[in-house]
């Protein structure tokens, strides 16, 4: 995809196709041109040149910042999409994809049809491509980048096809290219004619043109870098006939779990995320998935987690196969907790968290995760228990094993004032009688009831976090107050009179003391 950056940019801009646009990146000595449109290229702009040099040639060039990260993300998406042609896809450089199409071409007709299909589909996506199919990866790269046509297929006689290409097509480092050109070896054909020994002496091991040539011609293997991922533990069950009974998934689950647990035992793994996939006869699937707080391969626990969700799977026209797959597994060494076999307290709690999270939703079952902040509502963060239980344990152990709820607040933020036991999610506005401008509150009205303040402590002043909040955020003066009945509250006045950030300060109810 030689024009990837420009074409991606053009899809989301309102400039016409004939405008001279250059995309720029920050270089060491000013802006460098990253990519150019056709119009800009005609006016002398070249990728890699300095923007100032190009402007000297034509001052009417329009410079736009490039987005290399966005381009890389697009290439990654395209690589996944290119799985439609071949199972083995690799990102090659910034703007290339390499597909292993061995034994694939006949599915699309022949190699030419395959190349045409690739070009058409990329063109539909708005991207121009140069496609080359060759017996070796290096030869395909050379033909795609330096070939005379945008689609080339070379099934045999690679050497002859490559002979006319410049030596740069061998993908050597620039210094090696320069050396070769100084020697007068401008094309691959010329290079191939030289005696190997005299050539090999002049180059280092890594950028040896003889090696590169060997790779292109298939005399030397080029190792494949795309390694297929290890398959997740998976158990499958095929049914003789489609089943529509709602009990079917649960029964399938009962049969699949022992199989999966055996695999997990062999590989010393424990499940963190587990999915039961039901394959319907009409080619669709239904998935029920659960997560666990600590890795587990306890059959009863897994069965209990999934049973309810499995029973709720919609069979449609009937399931004819089931698969139970551990989407995420972590190492779990075989261990015996105690002689009698009772699970430890930690395991029990983790299982409780799993069950609660499955039933109520993972975001409803949480653990405190404190943050270093003076703002009360920020200081008490919450994290989903199902994903943080393990981390909390690890932190606890590393901090000496004490039952510290706030492992991260040790030396940083000192907890100065008293904090309430309950905090309203959203501070509620209250009407307060107080001695202006900064006197203590005497009486307040909260939710239509009057509270006469008997005792008060404060203020504890908490300034806004200017690095996060807008400049109009006002400081808060917190007061701990006790009304006549002895109920104690945490109220605050937001702002000061004349602080230039709004009118009269407002009062809010924020917390309740126990």
């Amino acid at each position: 995809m030689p024009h990837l950056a420009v074409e991606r940019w053009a899809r989301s801009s309102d400039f016409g196709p004939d405008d001279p646009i250059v995309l720029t990146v920050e270089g060491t000595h000013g802006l460098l041109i990253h990519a150019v449109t056709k119009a800009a290229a005609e006016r002398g702009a070249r990728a890699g040149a300095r923007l100032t040099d190009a402007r000297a040639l034509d001052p009417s060039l329009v410079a736009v910042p490039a987005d290399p990260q966005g381009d890389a993300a697009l290439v990654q998406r395209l690589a996944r999409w290119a799985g439609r042609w071949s199972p083995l896809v690799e990102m090659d450089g910034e703007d290339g994809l390499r597909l292993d199409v061995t034994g694939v071409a006949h599915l699309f007709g022949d190699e030419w049809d395959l190349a045409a299909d690739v070009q058409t589909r990329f063109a539909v996506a708005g991207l121009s491509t140069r496609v080359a199919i060759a017996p070796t990866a290096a030869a395909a790269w050379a033909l795609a980048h330096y070939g005379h046509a945008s689609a080339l297929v070379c099934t045999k006689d690679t050497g002859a096809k490559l002979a006319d290409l410049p030596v740069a097509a061998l993908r050597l480092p620039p210094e090696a290219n320069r050396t070769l050109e100084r020697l007068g070896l401008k094309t691959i054909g010329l290079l191939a004619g030289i005696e190997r020994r005299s050539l090999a002496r002049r180059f280092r091991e890594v950028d040896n043109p003889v090696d590169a040539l060997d790779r292109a011609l298939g005399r030397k293997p080029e190792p494949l870098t795309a390694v297929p991922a290890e398959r997740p533990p998976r158990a499958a069950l095929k049914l003789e006939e489609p089943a529509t009974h709602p009990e079917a998934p649960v029964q399938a689950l009962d049969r699949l779990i022992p199989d999966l647990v055996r695999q997990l035992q062999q590989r010393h793994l424990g499940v963190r995320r587990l999915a039961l996939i039901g394959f319907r006869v009409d080619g669709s699937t239904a998935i029920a998935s659960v997560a666990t707080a600590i890795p587990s391969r306890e059959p009863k626990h897994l069965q209990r987690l999934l049973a309810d969700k499995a029973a709720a799977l919609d069979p449609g026209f009937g399931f004819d196969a089931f698969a139970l797959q551990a989407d995420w597994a972590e190492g779990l060494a075989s261990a015996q907790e105690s002689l009698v076999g009772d699970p430890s307290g930690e395991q029990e709690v983790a299982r409780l968290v799993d069950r609660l999270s499955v039933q109520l939703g993972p975001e409803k079952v949480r653990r405190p995760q404190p943050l270093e902040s003076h703002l009360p509502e920020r200081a008490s963060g919450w994290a989903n228990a199902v994903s943080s239980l393990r981390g909390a344990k690890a932190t606890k152990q590393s901090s000496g094993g004490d039952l510290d709820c706030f492992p991260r607040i040790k030396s940083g933020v000192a907890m100065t004032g008293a904090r309430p036991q309950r905090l309203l999610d959203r501070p509620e506005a209250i009407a307060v009688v107080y001695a202006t401008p900064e006197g203590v509150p005497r009486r307040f009205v909260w939710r239509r009831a009057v509270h006469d303040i008997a005792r008060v402590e404060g203020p504890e002043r908490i300034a806004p976090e200017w690095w996060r909040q807008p400049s109009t955020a006002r400081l808060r003066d917190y007061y701990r107050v006790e009304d006549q009945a002895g109920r104690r509250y945490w109220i605050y006045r937001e702002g000061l009179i004349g602080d230039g950030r709004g009118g009269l300060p407002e009062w809010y109810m924020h917390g309740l003391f126990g």
Partner: protein
Amino acid sequence: MAEGLSLVAGDESRAAYSPAPGAAPGAPLPGARWPLPAPPGPTLSELFAASPRDAGWVGFLLAQAKRSKPLLWVQERMAILESGRIYPPGLGSMELIHVEARDARAALWAMEEGLRCSGLSGVIGELWGDPQVLDFTATRRLAVAAERSHVPCWLVRLGGTANLSGARMRWRIASGPSIANPFDTRAPGASAWDAELFRARGAPPGHWAIAHEADSFHLVAAPGGGALGEVERLRA
């Protein structure tokens, strides 16, 4: 400076001197240690907050909480909206698992699940009002589950009425005027509660004004007397 202040903060500052008006003859004097009427084993206790806007009961529960194991705290959504979400920085150091339940049914289910897990130090569940699902059977189930797994369970009722229940202990807790603050007479001091045990198995009901200090509860001047601060001021 600090030493001088800490002298004032001595043990005596907690107690008032006259027995509460109307107290039965022979009743323990304020300042005495007060043994928490406790059932023989971990069980279900029901606790009625005097008002949804009174969170005094939190301190009463936290004073009893064991902090060796995680605590499961279930809050119904309405309870969070009306009287706030629990705030870990104010709870002291404890391992905590917080559950936000959609309604009373979900809250009761989560509590019962928690009671089946012996790795917890306790289960606290807050319900709002008088939900339909909270009948005698539901509370009885909780009580049986708590006794079977030896996990104490507190069912907290916010804005509810004391209807039929299987709870072994039933409390009504209100905040009382706090005991004198040794450092600042105008500031609130340590919490005090007006605790009423109106139904209990194996213990006589009663009504006390108590405060918690150094791992035990103590009696303070009777609620409503409000004499504590004044006595302190007179002494000072």
